[in-house]
């Protein structure tokens, strides 16, 4: 189905998909960049955001409240996880960190399965964002259009926090050299806790705003986790702009390849990741030392 109309449509579709991937990946990358912890529970946190929001929506019927509750709940879960478990693993080998976060992910998923079962749940988009919009070259679900805007705003907020606040400055300094930040008298432990909370909140927020698109199930975060890792590797580990660029590239690769043959979409994503690793081992915007 190679024609201009389809190319434009897929290009646009890739942009929307990529923006969501960028948001989820940015949470993963700032956690890894600052704390040095590869959080394999990130996909589960994406799922937790969706479920927390769904519960809130069930009781209130308000999408806005669902988004707020979903985001804050996962932020709290992130903070508690960091204080209760992750901080004991900062000085342990990477394998231990991988195992503990992987295990946490399983616990979160199974807890949700225990509480709510394996069946799909969904939240409808707010009524004013339901329906379709004619873009001229294609018709597109209005909520997905809005989702693009929502995600862009969320990324901007994250950018402002990271680049225009004292907290952000410390976080970025921590990404470069956390020992030096510690030596400067800054309470790095508290910063670590906040970073984990913010990273988790980004995943939770993405989880709830994505729910009207794909619905919810306990394992909804599994494929997302794999994709976000690819995004982080492409963009450069620990780089917020890298996560944004990596997300958009990933979204476009998936969509444009799908135009020729959807079966190769994810193959091409991994080919791209391999190429980046060969040509720029630290990712497009990564630097040596963060890996």
């Amino acid at each position, binding site marked *: 189905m190679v024609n201009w109309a389809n190319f434009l449509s897929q290009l646009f579709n890739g942009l929307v998909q990529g923006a969501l991937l960028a948001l989820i990946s940015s949470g993963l990358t700032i956690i890894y960049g600052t704390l040095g912890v590869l959080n394999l529970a990130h996909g589960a946190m994406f799922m937790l955001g969706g479920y927390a929001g769904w519960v809130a929506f069930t009781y209130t019927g308000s999408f806005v409240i669902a988004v707020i509750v979903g985001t804050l709940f996962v932020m709290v879960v992130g903070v508690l996880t960091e204080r209760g478990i992750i901080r004991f693993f900062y000085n342990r080998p990477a394998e231990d960190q991988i195992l503990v976060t992987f295990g946490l992910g399983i616990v979160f998923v199974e807890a949700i399965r225990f509480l709510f079962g*394996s069946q799909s749940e969904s939240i409808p988009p707010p009524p004013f964002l339901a329906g379709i919009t004619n873009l001229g070259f294609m018709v597109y679900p209005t909520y997905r259009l809005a989702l693009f805007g929502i995600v862009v705003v969320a990324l901007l907020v994250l950018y402002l926090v990271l680049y225009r606040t004292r907290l952000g400055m410390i976080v970025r300094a921590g990404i470069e050299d956390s020992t030096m930040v510690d030596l400067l008298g800054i309470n790095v432990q508290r910063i670590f806790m906040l970073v984990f909370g913010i990273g988790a909140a980004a995943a939770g927020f993405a989880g709830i705003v994505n729910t009207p698109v*794909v619905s919810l199930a306990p394992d909804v975060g599994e494929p997302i986790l794999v994709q976000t890792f690819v995004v982080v590797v492409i963009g450069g580990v620990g780089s917020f702009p890298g996560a944004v660029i990596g997300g958009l590239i990933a979204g476009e690769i998936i969509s444009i390849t799908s135009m020729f043959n*959807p079966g190769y979409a994810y193959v091409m994503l991994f080919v791209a990741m391999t190429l980046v690793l060969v040509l720029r081992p630290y990712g497009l915007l990564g630097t040596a030392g963060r890996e």
Partner: protein
Amino acid sequence: MSRESMFRRGFSRRAVLAGSAGVAGSLLLPRFAFAEDQPPIGTWPAGSQGDTVNIGVAVPRTGSYAEQGEDELKGWQLAVDHINSGHDLMKQFVPKLDKGLLGKKVALQVADSAAKPNDAVQAQQRFINDNKVVLMTGSTSSAVAVALNHFADQQKVLYLAGISGSNDTTGKDCVRYGFRQNFFGQTAAAALGPVLVEAFGKNRKAAFMTPDYTYGHTVTKSMNDYLTQNAGWTQVTDQVSPLGTQDFSQYLTNIANSGAEFIINVNWGRDAVLSTQQAKQFGLLPQMKLVIPYQIPFLAKNVGADITEGVYAATDFWWTQEDQYPLAKTFVEEFLAQHKYRPEWGAENAYVSFAHWARMVTEAGTYYPPDVIKTYEKGETIPSLLGDVHYRPEDHQCIRPVVIVKGKKASDMKNAEDFWDVVKVVPGEGLMQAPDAFGCKLGSYT
């Protein structure tokens, strides 16, 4: 009688010894002959020596097919309850049923396969080792059914496919130890195709959505072959997606630009729900007509009657058939009483396939697998919930009707589960391909 008095009456020591040997010999003879006829194989005889026989169930309870897997599991559980209690409904299938089978209770051992062949095989291996299961079942994915088919043949333990729509299950991947009760791609296409052509005419353009494994590819091929060869339809695109896909936007974008008039959605389980919901979000539905060649339990409930209204689908069973078939009525009532919802076809297939197995075991008078297989292969006419059926000896496929349904308008629904109208019940015999058309070669009995 003392030894002394016995000998006084004329018994010599030699006669007593000879007599004893004769008695011992006569006792041993039938046992020896029995062992010769039914040598140990698979879990035989260990699996049926106690007072309970076990059945291994590997069914998806997580993942994309979890909802359908749970429905199947309820069907198997109900069948086992009815076997063990000697229920009247089960007696219609198994005339020689007592409370249990051949004097033994039946128990289920259940594991979550997550619709993954590896997980299913590992679970069944565990059940064979630990529980000496006499029967295996479970699949909501034909990838699992095909894997368990071959595993059953290696292990020489019977396997009944659960939901499995691939032509391969009783086609190129058929095995001597595997049986399938339900309809499949070829019969779905042969039953649904004429209805579509009658309703929509010739020379139409269809986009297919195909899950990327044996079920998807064979159902799509059968459906496409029928429509192109018999009615000049064109497949304008075939969007193949991996099992477990959540976001179908790129596939739907291709369909939107394909010029298709129909979306023939072969996806299954949650994938079918998501792809259908998203097709609506993208404005493709109702602009394009949706067709479901292999009906998905709970699809209509999940996507809503506004999407399934007017949609044609092929299925194994729909609960409103209770009005025409007395056994179906009892089954629906029993199931509803126990589970508070009306059974979908996954539960029906599960119940009926167990009932058929129980019948074969009682007719064979043994759990010895080759004898049970040979009883199936007699091709005897036996009941189902939709009238008489039989198993084809050449490929172990049950020759059974295919039900064509059409989605109801929400305002026409008589209750919350009244999603489909039964349009037609197509007899099975005329829908079947030639026994060797899909390359079935059954293996040996031992």
